[in-house]
């Protein structure tokens, strides 16, 4: 096996060049073949968003009713242990919700205050970017949604989400659902799930379950960011709000009034 070394190196570089070109050349073709390509060019009229007014969350009950409303309506299982836990909306202390804002001199009231956390329905969602099957995708109205039937359970989205918003069904969830709601699908083991901004209710003209649960004190305000007359826009204009980890450029759709 004696190969002419010099000629081969030239040949090698040629092949390297051609294979790189043909590899790169196939990218637009693959793009064109993917259904997402069409969606990308559509303009949406809506961009759903939520404002969490932490001033309105005073008692344990204020949190509980929102969480329960969501978890009951969406058949979220309760395994009773943190390892298998599935959650869509829950509370987290200030220091965990905004870890980069840590400051020992911040008022005790804020430091102790648990914040409501849920999927941020980012404008640039990293989870959507990494999903190998488009089982998680961004709708034109800004909702980041899951297709439970397409998810292969690789959990790349869980590694990609900088907000810890995603849960995985490590076990069969159905036996752990207290009361099944026939209006919403239950999931199977081995798929990822998270808050869906109640897209199933929005399509019926209803507001999300958590928003409805605390409508007496308007702790959660939900609406369309693209509509200048919407309630969320008005609240955002008249209050100083913050979002989680804004430095990552994900553009969360969940705002907080501290």
């Amino acid at each position: 096996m004696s190969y002419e070394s010099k000629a081969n190196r030239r040949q090698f570089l040629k092949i390297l060049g051609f294979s790189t070109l043909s590899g790169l050349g196939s990218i637009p073709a693959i793009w064109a073949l993917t259904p997402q390509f069409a969606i990308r060019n559509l303009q949406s009229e809506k961009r759903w968003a939520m404002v969490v007014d932490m001033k309105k969350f005073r008692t344990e009950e204020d949190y509980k009713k929102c969480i329960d409303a969501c978890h009951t309506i969406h058949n979220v299982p309760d395994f009773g242990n943190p390892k298998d836990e599935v959650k869509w909306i829950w509370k987290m202390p200030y220091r965990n919700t905004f870890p980069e804002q840590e400051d020992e001199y911040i008022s005790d009231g804020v430091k102790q205050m648990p914040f409501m956390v849920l999927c941020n329905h980012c404008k640039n969602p990293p989870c959507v970017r990494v999903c190998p099957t488009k089982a998680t995708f961004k709708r034109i109205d800004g909702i980041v949604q899951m297709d439970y039937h397409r998810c292969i359970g690789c959990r790349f989205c869980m590694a990609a989400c900088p907000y810890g918003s995603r849960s995985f069904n490590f076990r069969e969830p159905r036996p752990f659902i207290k009361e099944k709601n026939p209006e919403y699908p239950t999931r199977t083991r081995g798929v990822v799930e998270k808050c869906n901004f109640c897209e199933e209710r929005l399509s019926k003209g209803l507001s999300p379950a958590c928003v409805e649960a605390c409508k007496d004190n308007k702790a959660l305000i939900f609406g369309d960011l693209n509509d200048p007359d919407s309630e969320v826009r008005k609240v955002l204009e008249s209050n100083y709000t913050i979002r989680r980890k804004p430095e990552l450029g994900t553009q969360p759709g969940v705002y907080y009034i501290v």
Partner: protein
Amino acid sequence: MFEKALSGDRRYWGWIFFLLLIMGTGFIFYIKQLNYGLGITGMSRDISWGLYIAQFTFLVGVAASAVMLVIPYYLHDYKKFGKIIIFGEFLAISAVIMCLMFVFVDMGQPMRAMNMILYPTPNSIMFWDMVVLNGYLLLNLIIGWTTLSAERNELPPPKWVKPLIYISIPWAISIHTVTAFLYAGLPGRHLWLTAIMAPRFLASAFASGPALLIILCLTVKRISSFDPGKEAIQTLGKIVTYAVIINLFFFVLELFTAFYSKIPGHMHPFQYLFFGIEGHGKLIPWMWTAFILSIMAIILLINPNMRENENILIVSAVLVFISTWIDKGMGLVIGGFIPNPFEEIIEYSPTVPEVLITLGVWATGLLIITVLYKIAVSIKEKTV
């Protein structure tokens, strides 16, 4: 050529059955995992990848390292590697198959695996990883099998393989670069969000792969009449020496950026891995072992007189292999998840079923290596 794998002495069959036993055990526990779900493992909402993906990441490196034989032999006409190049290619085949198996056992819905092909998603790095890994497997199967068949018939390899061999060189780099991109492009995971992730992966790959090859070649030499050649083994030793030093250098670069900038997010994973945070530190003994072993290996390898002693060389190779296996497996994967996005420290340790399934996959890989090496050695014993 397969018939060569079907004749062997008692030791050979004993080893094969031993591997089959471990594979069988792993398979039984995999069925259990299928029925129960991934909750059977130590993984959780916070540590959503564990031992399986750690093995996957490490083994992609082992697979890519075949290129360290291909470049000298085919591009620089370094003839000494002629005898062992097939072992590099066959090691790559086995390593890639293990990689694919580890990804498969990690899936929550393995029966939906074909969704990756039915709904190709080019913006997902995992899509490209699937493309490059399967492509690399195919390349090595064709190249390895064709060149070995030609050797058996005492003919030069057919001309059409050469372009494939050349393509396999950038392809090997690509499998590890793309695998690094799985991690390096995720916002909010500080340990992984580093531009030198791919170079680090390649450095540790070119340390661990050739180290394993040294171990395998010296084992082959001991149990068969085939001699891979002293100089070939020594050259592999040099490659390991350079790579393990570069790997350590890259690691120091990471430490500098994290600890001189003092950005908490960048320091936390390293603090967790090496010193523990808030009393949590399950990986501390592992990480220090990895660190100390790599320093020991460098001390043994850097002196040419010591390296020339094959006993010292094989010990160093074992040290490098264990060290990179810890560092690039569990250290990298688990370290990336701690602290979690809420800056909480939630730890992970694999469960017994998880370990047995992992051993089962490793046994499958070893079985593939054994069979392929048996074929190669039988042919080489005749022709050399």
